[in-house]
Each structure stands twice: as structure tokens, then as C-alpha cells.
């Protein structure tokens, strides 16, 4: 190191040559980082496809449409987990989105500077809590509370044949699709709120001040100036939350009730793709069982990819 420094001082020529060489090395490094990522992605897809092939080959489309998941008879249909994944993710998004919007608008628009930072940091800290901690909290705190204060009253007050009775039917123990969605919502909230906040901060203060100067109310500034300004970013935030909710494993496993069939109501127990894999992979000894679980992984991959692709398409559509 020290000799190299002396060299470059004593001779003018190598300095330039070295920087050209450095450029090349730098470019190669960046290129290989990018290709390595692509290769890893391709590797994952290929190995999932190969590992899951026996299941796809044997069950065909039935793997996605059938609800039979029976390790004893080696029959695998993943409709239950697939529907469970989509329903919990969308529900979580519906719950988290307004909250994330509220938090970030409050932080950017109304909150005194002095407490804005602590709140922002607290929101970001929420994102750092391990998923399994949310799961345990859900199992030991949320589920029993939910069972006695929400499920029981609904069970008792509504006729089980009425529409509400049917939507909310289920064993009152708090382990169901809805509580899993609640936990998911809490988990994706900090991500969405943090990104929303950053987005809202990109609105130039001149624009906001101009709107206030024209006599707009706070609500009008937020709804008619700031949100349209960050419009396409919003889609990105939603997709970020959805992507995370789709793949979340541990917390959901604890609280969704883990039954493989098709969920019949919001308060029925169900399963998601990730929870099924987490539950069964360690003890899956037969080849077809392992293949079915890997095939599930591929289905989740495709699902997540579809979400991202949709986000891209929406963003592209907004540009025009």
C-alpha cells in the first residue's frame, strides 16, 4: 500500500493507466454483481421447477385447483393454501393501507418537528421486530382477546344462517384467516408507512405552500396536491406491502389455524403457501411430499412475480 502510493507520486504516467484499469475492474465488478443476481434468480426458478416437477407432472392442473392435501395417500392439491395466501394478503393490505397513509400524512403534514422524528423511528423499529415475535404475540395475546371480545359476541348475536353469521362462522379461538390478516397488516404497516413518508417528503415545499397560499385546507392539500404528486409511488408502496404479506411465514403459521381445506368463512382456519411449507418441510420424508412442497414454493414465486409485474405495468401505464 505504502509503496503504491510512493509510485503514483513519483511517476505521473501510471496514475492515468491505473485509473483506467480501476475503471475496468469497477465496471466488471458491477457487471458481475448484476449477473450473479440474475443467475441466482434463474437458479432458484430452475431448481424449484425441477424439484416440483414430479408433483406438477402427477397432478397437473389439479395441483392448483384441488383442495385435497393428504400426505398419507400422497395426494396433493394446493387450492386451500393458494386461496389462503391471496385472501390474507389482500385483507392485510386493506387494513394496513389507510393506516400507513394516516401515519405518514400526520408525520409529514401535521406533526410538530420535535416529535415527528421519534414517531418515525418508532415506526421503523416496528419493521425490525422478528416475525416469530409477532407470531407469539398473536398466539398468546391477540388470538384469545379476539376470541372472547369479537368472535363470541358475533357468534351469539347473529343467526348462524344469516349472511353475517356465515361470513364470521368458526370456532371461537382466534386462530383464523382474519387474525392472520391482522398480524400481517401490523407487520407490513411500518414498511408501507416509511416509504409513504419518504414519498410525501419528495413533494416540493413550494408546491405545498402555493396550495396553502391559494387558500386550500389541509385536507385539500393532501388529497388534491400531495397524493396526486406521489401517485405512481403509491402503487409501488402497495405492491411492496403485498409482496411482503404474500411471503410472510412464521407469524402466519402460528395463528392461521393450519387446516389445508378451503376456508369457508373469514373466521375459519386456513393455511397459506408459506405456512404449509414451514410446517411440513422438515418432516417430509416421501419424495412426492417434498416435491409437492417445492412445487408450492414455485407457485408462490409465480404469484409474487405476477404482483410485481402488475405493479410495473400500472406504473408504466401512469407514465403515459
Amino acid at each position: 500500500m505504502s509503496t503504491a502510493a510512493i509510485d503514483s507520486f513519483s511517476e505521473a504516467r501510471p496514475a492515468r493507466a491505473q485509473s483506467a484499469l480501476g475503471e475496468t475492474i469497477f465496471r466488471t465488478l458491477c457487471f458481475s454483481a448484476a449477473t450473479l443476481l440474475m443467475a441466482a434468480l434463474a437458479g432458484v426458478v430452475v431448481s424449484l421447477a425441477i424439484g416440483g416437477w414430479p408433483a406438477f407432472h402427477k397432478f397437473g392442473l389439479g395441483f392448483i385447483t384441488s383442495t385435497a392435501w393428504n400426505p398419507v395417500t400422497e395426494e396433493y392439491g394446493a387450492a386451500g393454501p393458494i386461496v389462503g395466501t391471496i385472501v390474507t394478503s389482500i385483507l392485510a393490505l386493506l387494513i394496513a393501507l389507510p393506516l400507513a397513509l394516516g401515519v405518514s400524512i400526520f408525520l409529514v403534514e401535521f406533526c410538530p418537528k420535535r416529535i415527528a422524528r421519534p414517531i418515525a423511528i418508532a415506526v421503523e423499529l416496528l419493521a425490525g421486530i422478528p416475525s416469530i415475535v409477532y407470531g407469539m404475540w398473536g398466539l398468546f395475546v391477540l388470538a384469545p382477546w379476539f376470541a372472547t371480545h369479537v368472535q363470541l359476541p358475533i357468534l351469539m348475536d347473529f343467526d348462524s344462517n344469516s349472511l353475517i353469521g356465515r361470513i364470521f362462522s368458526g370456532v371461537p379461538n382466534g386462530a383464523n384467516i382474519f387474525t392472520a390478516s391482522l398480524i400481517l397488516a401490523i407487520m407490513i404497516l411500518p414498511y408501507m408507512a416509511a416509504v409513504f413518508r419518504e414519498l410525501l417528503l419528495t413533494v416540493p415545499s413550494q408546491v405545498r405552500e402555493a396550495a396553502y397560499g391559494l387558500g386550500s385546507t389541509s385536507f385539500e392539500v393532501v388529497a388534491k396536491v400531495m397524493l396526486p404528486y406521489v401517485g405512481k409511488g403509491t402503487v409501488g408502496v402497495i405492491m411492496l406491502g403485498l409482496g411482503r404479506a404474500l411471503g410472510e411465514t412464521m407469524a402466519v403459521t402460528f395463528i392461521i389455524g393450519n387446516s389445508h381445506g378451503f376456508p369457508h368463512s373469514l373466521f375459519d382456519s386456513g393455511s397459506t403457501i408459506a405456512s404449509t411449507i414451514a410446517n411440513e418441510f422438515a418432516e417430509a420424508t416421501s419424495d412426492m411430499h417434498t416435491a409437492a412442497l417445492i412445487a408450492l414454493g414455485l407457485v408462490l414465486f409465480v404469484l409474487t412475480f405476477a404482483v410485481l409485474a402488475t405493479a410495473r405495468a400500472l406504473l408504466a401505464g401512469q407514465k403515459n
Partner: protein
Amino acid sequence: MLKTFVATAGVAALLASAAPAADITGAGATFPAPVYAKWAETYKASTGIGLNYQAIGSGGGIKQIKAKTVDFGASDKPLKPADLDAAGLYQFPTVVGGVVPIVNIPGISAGQIKLTGPMLAAIFYGQITKWDDPVIVKNNPGVKLPALPITVVHRSDGSGTSFLFTSYLSMKSAGWAGKVGASDSVNWPVGLGGKGNDGVSAFVKQTAGSIGYVEYAYAKQNHAAYVLVQNKTGKYPQPTAQDFAAAAAGAKWAAAPGNYLLLLDQPGANSWPITGATFILVYKEQANPAAGQSVLKFFDWAYKNGDAAAASLDYVPLPGAVKSLVRKQWAVNVKAGGKPVYSGQ
């Protein structure tokens, strides 16, 4: 310069000290992991040989030993003799555990309800749906059973506990055997799944009228409201260490090829009906005799000195007769180049 020298010397010293005592590597079942860890700690203190055991689940343990990445695999369910032969493996039991049904029925305390195998099967199949069902009432004279619907709670994760429990139900009910069967994870006809013993126990505690099943050690440590299950002789033993040991002692190990034995519904007035051992898998033909020898040496040491540690963690040690039988098997079954790798001290 000096730093490099010190570092080199340090590395050399490490290599020198590590060379003679290679650690034993193993992977598999999570259920016996705490007792293996405790044995390993004491064993290392007395011999200097450590055990690197990865609790990745029985399925993973079987895969790892088949891939030859570990010295031994560990599984909560025994492999069938045909599977053992196909893979060239030999298995032996280490400790005994069992499954205990637990309930949450208002007004009912631990050990108050008595059920038979077929009743358990009917409950878990969803045929008996209320606690005051005449079948249950008739079997429990004098117990006031509420008209509460039964909620079934089972394990959601694949586990040896589920394997043992569903094997027992299959044994006791032809209907269960035909429609559901026995496995680490099955297609449960009714109920909801909790992850691990904690998950099952939490759901049972939170749901009035529920019934689930957990590992014996877990039920004991958490003072769960257990159910008594009728055994082969028609008696209702208590889920205690002695009654699990009774089941293990009553079993006919000598007549079980490949030690394939499920300690379910064993004879003996005190035998707890849902008992099972956990197993170690090693190759019959050891490619590395030294590694094979240190595995057997370790478990021989554990057989001799490990009972107190096992009991303190609520595992049930194997009866002495079973241990000596297994020791004799080692010399016959685990060899390298035709010679036993370990023949005891």
C-alpha cells in the same frame, strides 16, 4: 510480523488439539435434541470429544444420513426394515417418550376423563362431537360432562408426535386407518392445527371444549389437564415416567427386526398405550470406522451414565434389558470390513 507469528502459532495449536479428538456429527429429530445436548456437554467434559447435533427434524435427519453428510441420523419414527435394508442402515432406540391427550373442559381436572382408543379416533374423526355424547358419558360414570361441542386441536407441523398418535388411532380404529391413516402429517378430518407442542397447548387452553395431544414431557412441565387412555389390559394408567417405561419394558424388542417397534398398546397393566422411542440411524457398513466407533461409544456412554440427565429433562430412559440387547446388536450390525467397529469396553 509478531502478530502473524502469534496467529500462525495459534492456528497450529488449534489444529494440533483438534486432530486427535474429532467431533461427532449428527442431525435429525428435534424431540430428543435437549437430552442429546445435555449428554454431549457432560461427555465432552470427560472425554474431550464434542457432539455437533443439528435438530433439523426427523425427515431432515433421514435425508442427511442418506446423503452421508453426518455420522448419525436421528428419527422419532423408526424406519421400516425394508427401508433400512435398502439404505444399508441400522437403527437403535435411545430414549422413550409418549403422547398424552389434553383437554379443556370447564369443571374437569387432569386425569378425570377416561377414554378408549376407539373413542379418541371417533372424536378426532369428528364422529363424536359433544362432550356429553352417550359413549363418553357411559365410560365416565360419576363425571359431570357438559353439553359442550368438541373442538379438535392437532399439530400443524409434521412431527413424530403426530406420527405416534395417528399410528395409535389407526391401530384402534379400522375407519381411521382406512380414511386417514398414520403419518407425520395427515389430512385431518376436523379441527385446527397449532405449531408445535406450544401451539397445540395454547389453542387447547384458549378454547373451552377442546381436545389436543402433546408430548409427555411438555404435558408434565405445563401441568396440562390430561386424559387417561385405556391400555391393552383394560386399565387406565397414569401418564408418568414409570408407566412409559413399563410400555418400553413390556415390548418385545428381540422379536422386532431392525428394531422397528412402535411401543403402542403394549401389554402390562401399567403400560401407557401411546408410547414411542426415538431412534439413531447409522450405516451397517462404516466407511470411516473411527467415526462409527465414536458414535457408538458416545451412546454406550449415554446408556451407562445418561439416565439421570434424561430423567431430569422428563425423558424416559430405556429399561436396562433393552440397553443390553442393543449393545449386543452393535457388534453384529455395525461393521467395517467385516469387523465390528465397536464392541464395548
